[in-house]
């Protein structure tokens, strides 16, 4: 299927309609919620382009770190279990490196303007 506009184009159009037109007609609580809706659609737009490659990177790191194969959800559950049990220590460098990379990939989708995210990117580049 090659439908146009595709999902990304439609979401962008709805987001722009909300932020440039609808929001100006709203007040108070509803206006605030419209702003939250605009931000939510921004997350969806970024997720549509960034999530696939981010999940592949995460899956590859987890294979190395855990030495197991499986669906991403299962691998993340396994990782949590090993942290909880202490099998992976809370100062394990490979673990911390993985958690940092995963958190940064999530922030790139969820909230790229987050000050601590921008700061962390700069610090990682300096390394």
């Amino acid at each position, binding site marked *: 299927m090659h439908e146009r506009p595709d999902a990304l184009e439609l979401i962008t159009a709805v987001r722009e309609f909300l932020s440039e037109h609808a929001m100006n007609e709203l007040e108070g609580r509803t206006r605030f919620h419209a702003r*939250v*809706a605009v931000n939510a659609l921004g997350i969806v737009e970024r997720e549509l382009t960034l999530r696939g490659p981010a999940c592949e990177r995460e899956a590859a790191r987890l294979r190395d770190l855990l030495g197991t194969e499986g669906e991403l959800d299962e691998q993340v559950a396994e990782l949590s279990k090993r*942290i909880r049990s202490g099998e992976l220590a809370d100062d394990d460098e490979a673990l*911390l490196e993985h958690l940092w990379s995963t958190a940064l990939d999530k922030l790139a989708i969820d909230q790229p303007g987050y000050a601590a*995210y921008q700061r962390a990117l700069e610090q990682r580049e300096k390394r």
Partner: protein
Amino acid sequence: MPGRDGSMMRTVSATTQSLEERLERAVRRRRPDVESVRWLERLPAGATQETSVFEVVDQGNPRRSILRRRPDGMPDGDGLSRTTLETEAELLRVVGNSGVPVPRVEFILDASDAMGAGYAMEWIEGETIPRRILRDESYAAARPRLPRQLGEALARIHAVEIDPLPALPRATPAQLVEGQRQALAQHERPQPVLELAVRWLAHRIPPAQPLRLVHGDFRNGNLIVGPEGLRSVLDWELAHLGDPLEDFGWVCANVWRFGVVDQRVGGFGPLEELIEGYVSAGGQAVDASAVLWWEVLASLKWATICLGMYALYTSGLDPSIERATIGRRLSENEIDLLNLIAPLS
């Protein structure tokens, strides 16, 4: 004063009156000479209790007050280990007498008011919205003063004699970590960074200190600030007995810096100044490095609060878009926690 006979009748009929009418009656019972009582608006704060502004004119002088009450039909205490409104009012009186800047309590509602649990306090002019306090020119002189002033306020809170206080929940560091572990276990999705934080905290539990009165939600957002600095400390509903450093960790947590990430205390200034203010007002010396553990706990706590708010959405209890999207703030928590546990520089 209501007479002995028929007072029940009066109470019953009072509940059918509007809030405005019942409020006017409650004020006039206590101050029969006032000229007028006018309910102004409900403030957009808190769903479990109602906060309204009203105005009383006495001898030609209009004065605003705040009414905090449990909305009609809602039981007091909502199971989130919040204090009751009576306890909150009593606490305000006690800490006010100890020199903590808080609004003066004017009266506590009783059964004859037929308004449920609640109390009235003075209205204090000033700004509470964190981003305005951090960015508006009007508060430029206030900002550098705030860390010391907050330290002084904390010293006075922590110095309150605890024996005469109303019954409050108690929480040692080990119990707080266990509470977070349980909160996390309630959610199905695995959260590796939050698991790491629980583990990290559990391995480093600080020695238990003598219990002190702890505010429990001491942060940018629960303060009234004027151009000269701190005017009032609000929101005492999470007050409990615990380790004084719990308040230090919470006020420092990155979530309450609202983007001013380099100023550890609420985006206002450095931890050292908070400690200086604390010690200058009689607080015990604080080892700055000991605050790290409490800041990790604070960030973890905010993460499980976000998870809980998102769960309100998925369960259908609160279908607002705000609740839905807060789940995506978890990644902010992850970065904040990693910055504390595994800093990049």
